[in-house]
């Protein structure tokens, strides 16, 4: 079910013209794909377009403090990196971007309103799915495009805000069906369907955790007929997982699924190791464990643990063979001193989606697009980042490959890595347009 790795000779054999054409043929699209060296001596007709002189005012809201900052600051780094690359390459049709970054908090809706009042031409964020849900009607009422970095609750564009009711709200990161299903498929890939008779879940006790648990359960039961033996939902930011770990030790499920992230993920691994949990399960799959890459220690990644990394793992394809990813990794290390995680790509990709669509719109229009024109171009828009190719589908949900691999440790980086990465194409782990995820899984 996994997508085949690209052969070295294929990547090396692709000529400059082909790559330029593939990534959209424009300066910014190439720069954001991480291929700036291809831009030399390239004439660009976009320079003739009539666009305003002033910079593009943009706003990003993300979690900058507290427990969710583990995710939010990565999104900030990603968005800032994309903006830096755009500005270093003369902006979008000559327009630089000024990006204001503010704390998302619980007032994402109010933050968006303030951004609009401040004259922002585009806004990015939020991280929280609840915040995102509250924002969508307001985004459509205000008519200023927002590209959400995360806010990955599945039902948002499937049921609550279908395409005919949504013009200006978009989401870059894969939705949570994709990572929860990738976890189910990964478990089957690793253990084999016949070897999975029981499973358990320890997921954070809020909307995201409940949603992930439901999707994973539906997926693993359809794929293997396995029986759930335990489901625990510790509070977000809890300081004790022991009761859940004891329950897992007692039930000895074949697969443990956990969508815990940040401090909850490290706590689960710490206490799990302490209580010998990994001797009592065959495999643990966690779609966002690698979000804590910079906080994990060597001892914690031991054991049969496979982690997802949403639509981006920095070393897939291998940075030895994929220079855009290598350049990005180096830039992030130099600039921020961290390993970029999938949430980095959430910020990077959200900005890239909008910027490449804006540049695409300027070309035929010969002027800067209006919000509705840009929204139209963004719908169905395809673009590249160092994570690969992304498609902003007609439901305004972006689709990219999902990544899963074995949690490991790199002495060179002194950080967690994932190895033997499996890559799942969107059509393997998400329903066709117009279908509801759980109904689609039920039909497997």
């Amino acid at each position, binding site marked *: 079910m996994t997508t085949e790795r690209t052969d070295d000779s294929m990547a090396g054999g692709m000529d400059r013209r082909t790559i330029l054409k593939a990534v959209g043929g424009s300066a910014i699209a190439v720069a954001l794909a991480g291929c700036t060296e291809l831009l030399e001596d390239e004439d660009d007709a976009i320079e003739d377009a009539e666009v305003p002189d002033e910079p593009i005012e943009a706003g990003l809201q993300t979690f900058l403090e507290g427990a969710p900052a583990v995710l939010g600051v990565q999104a900030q780094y990603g968005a800032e990196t994309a903006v830096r690359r755009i500005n270093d390459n003369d902006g979008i049709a000559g327009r630089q971007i000024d990006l204001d970054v503010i704390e998302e908090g619980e007032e994402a809706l109010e933050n968006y*309103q303030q951004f609009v009042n401040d004259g922002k031409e585009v806004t990015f964020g939020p991280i929280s799915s*609840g915040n995102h849900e*509250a924002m969508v009607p307001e985004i459509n009422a205000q008519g200023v495009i927002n590209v959400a970095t995360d806010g990955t609750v599945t039902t948002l564009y499937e049921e609550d805000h279908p395409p005919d009711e949504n013009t200006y709200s978009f989401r870059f990161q894969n939705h949570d069906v994709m990572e929860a299903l990738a976890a189910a498929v990964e478990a089957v890939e690793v253990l084999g369907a016949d070897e999975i008779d029981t499973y358990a879940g320890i997921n954070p006790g809020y909307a995201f955790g409940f949603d992930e648990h439901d999707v994973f359960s539906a997926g693993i039961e359809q794929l293997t007929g396995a029986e759930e033996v335990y489901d625990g939902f510790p509070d977000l930011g809890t300081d004790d997982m022991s009761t859940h770990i004891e329950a897992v030790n007692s039930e000895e499920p074949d697969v443990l699924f956990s969508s815990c992230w940040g401090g909850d993920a490290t706590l689960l691994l710490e206490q799990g190791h302490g209580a010998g949990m990994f001797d009592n399960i065959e495999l643990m799959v966690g779609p966002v464990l690698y979000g804590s890459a910079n906080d994990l220690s060597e001892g914690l990644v031991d054991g049969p643990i496979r982690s997802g990394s949403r639509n981006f793992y920095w070393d897939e394809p291998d940075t030895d063979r994929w220079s855009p990813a290598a350049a990005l990794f180096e830039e992030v290390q130099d600039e921020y001193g961290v390993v970029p995680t999938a949430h980095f790509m959430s910020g990077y990709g959200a900005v890239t989606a909008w910027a490449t669509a804006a540049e695409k719109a300027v070309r035929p229009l010969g002027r800067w697009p209006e919000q509705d024109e840009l929204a139209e171009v963004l719908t169905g828009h395809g673009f590249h980042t160092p994570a690969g190719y992304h498609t902003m589908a007609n439901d305004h949900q972006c689709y990219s490959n999902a990544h899963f691999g074995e949690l490991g440790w790199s002495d060179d980086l002194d950080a967690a890595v994932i190895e033997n990465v499996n890559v799942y194409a969107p059509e393997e782990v998400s329903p066709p347009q117009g279908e509801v995820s759980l109904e689609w899984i039920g039909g497997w």
Partner: protein
Amino acid sequence: MSRFSPLEERDGKTVVRVPFTRGLTLTSGQTALALVGLVVLFGLPFLAGLVGLSWGRLFRGLLFGMAAVGLNLLLRHTELVSFGHAAFFGGGAYAVAVMAAHLEVSEGILLLLSAVIVGTLLAAVIGYFVAGYVDIYFALLTLAFNAVIFATVFRSAFFNYNDGLAVRVGGDNPTLFGLAWTDLGYDLVLYYTTIVLMIVMLVLMWRLINSPFGRALDAIGQDRTRARFIGIPVERYVWYSFTISGLYGAFAGGVYALQRLHVQPEPTLYVFVSGEILFMAILGGFTTLVGPLIGGVLLVYLLEATRFSFYYYHAPIGIILLAIVLFMPKGIMGSLPDFFAGLRRRVADPGRLGDDVRSIRSMVRQSLTRATTTVRILVFGVK
């Protein structure tokens, strides 16, 4: 003066009788201030933008302030500190959301009515259990009830967990008075309806606290045992005041849901919100009727707006609040009489300004001396 004239002579001064209050009189200065307040309140949708303020944010501030006015009935009169009033604000907000999302009720006034009913019932039930307690026990019990309600909503699929519920039926704004409005029309009608109701509720609160019942609450606040000895049914009166207090929070929460059109547990039901409502009352001046309203506007504005100017936005908020608490211990409205009296004295006798400067200089000198001594002890030890 004519019998129908609002003006009357009292202690040689002309004062203004406020209609419907049975006894509230204002001096000419207070009347001018009240009129300015009314003009600002009614002109807010048009004036806010002119001075670069967000009308929506001010509106939310007034709503939280209204919840603080309700809380103040307990705080000021029965001297009970509730750490759980977000339960009624959030209860009202969630009543609106549940009615719209699950029962598809789309009339805003009906939704608001359901908020008041549900929030008040909630307050009546919780009040029944906590009315017999005082001090820290009362505070902890109210906090515990709040926490239980928050956890229930946060973990319930019926309330859609922390993602919350939309207050839109079929994607449309609720109707108001049976009419569908444009977005701006909806906001304006909702605002003015709220303001009118808010003024009525403030007048009612004034009458309540100046009624025999209000005096009984004061007696309970001063000494429960004595109040009981003179025949006041203490627990019952505390229960009534708790319920009325919750009604104000429920009303505010209901309007909040109609204004924001999406209700989530953290901004409405979390125990920190209870703390904020309490702080609003203290900040604005809990010894006054409208102080909590001012406190609400100020705190909400600071919490929402400073993040756009400061990266570490909690720091300036903390400094501003510290300054108000240290230098205006009676809160903003409570300190106004002292402030104006001091101003009048200095206008009459400018020499006092010199004393002020000397006082400040002496205060700074003493602080520096203390700081130097502390540093010397830290570095060289006590010798």
